[in-house]
């Protein structure tokens, strides 16, 4: 196995994402969520937002190459869990600077006694003012 504890601390470059209204609408439609704050800018403004806001799971669309995991056989991975933490909602027009980092790797025994490797990948996003907006933590299980 190429993936082990040594990848903890591996960091991506900084990726800049412009949050677009069309991307928010398409994502909300894909979930089947017709909340007007995702579709109608006037409705979002009436609720006090600058523009459309993004659904809580929207950071999944911000694809950053996973640091330290390029050698991993994708067919042996499972998505074990996911966390999102927000200081404020993401708003259309935001330009977010995001960095992903492997923050933990640990081993656990599976149901049948086989070893499973848990990889915790954290992505943090801040706006152009340098204010923290969100972080997301992905648990990847490597079998």
């Amino acid at each position, binding site marked *: 196995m190429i993936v082990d504890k040594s990848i903890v601390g591996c960091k991506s470059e900084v990726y800049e994402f412009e949050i677009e209204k069309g991307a928010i609408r*398409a994502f909300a439609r*894909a979930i089947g969520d017709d909340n007007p704050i995702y579709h109608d800018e006037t409705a979002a403004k009436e609720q006090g937002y600058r523009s459309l806001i993004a659904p*809580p*799971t929207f950071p999944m*669309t911000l694809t950053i190459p996973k640091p330290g995991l390029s050698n991993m056989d994708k067919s042996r991975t499972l998505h074990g869990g*996911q966390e*999102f933490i927000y*200081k404020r909602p993401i708003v259309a027009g935001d330009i977010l600077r995001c960095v992903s980092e492997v923050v933990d790797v640990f081993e656990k025994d599976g149901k049948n006694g086989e070893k499973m490797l848990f990889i915790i990948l954290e992505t943090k996003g801040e706006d152009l003012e340098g204010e923290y907006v969100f972080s997301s933590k992905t*648990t990847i299980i490597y079998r």
Partner: protein
Amino acid sequence: MQWSEFEIDQELKPLVKPPIEKVHLVQYAGASGDFNLIHTDEETAKNAGLPGVIAHGMLSVGYIGQLLTNLAGNKGFVSNLNVRFTGMVFPGDVVTCRAKVVAKDEVNRTVVFKISSETPEKQVITGDATITFYHE
């Protein structure tokens, strides 16, 4: 709902989504950028040892996001959403999302929920979430 309307142990009205269709998985793949073919291509799914294509786990988490954002209304926002995947979802499945109040914090104006999703057969997601309410 307002922060003051939530009570500990209160179970919120569940969100029952329409049955998942394969076209929803293609649509979610496109919108999210998750093009892992186990979600859209039967052959790939079967080669991976699955009975057929499976739904993106994050699609079901998106449904939980919908339930929570509806609860927050224009009074707050989802400040934390933390889930663990416990089961797979297949085309045809009806996913039901639930939230139950487990804690409230007056100072931070937060409500913490235990959340879960299930198909008629099994639980597929478990976790917790927080809505932070804006000060009036």
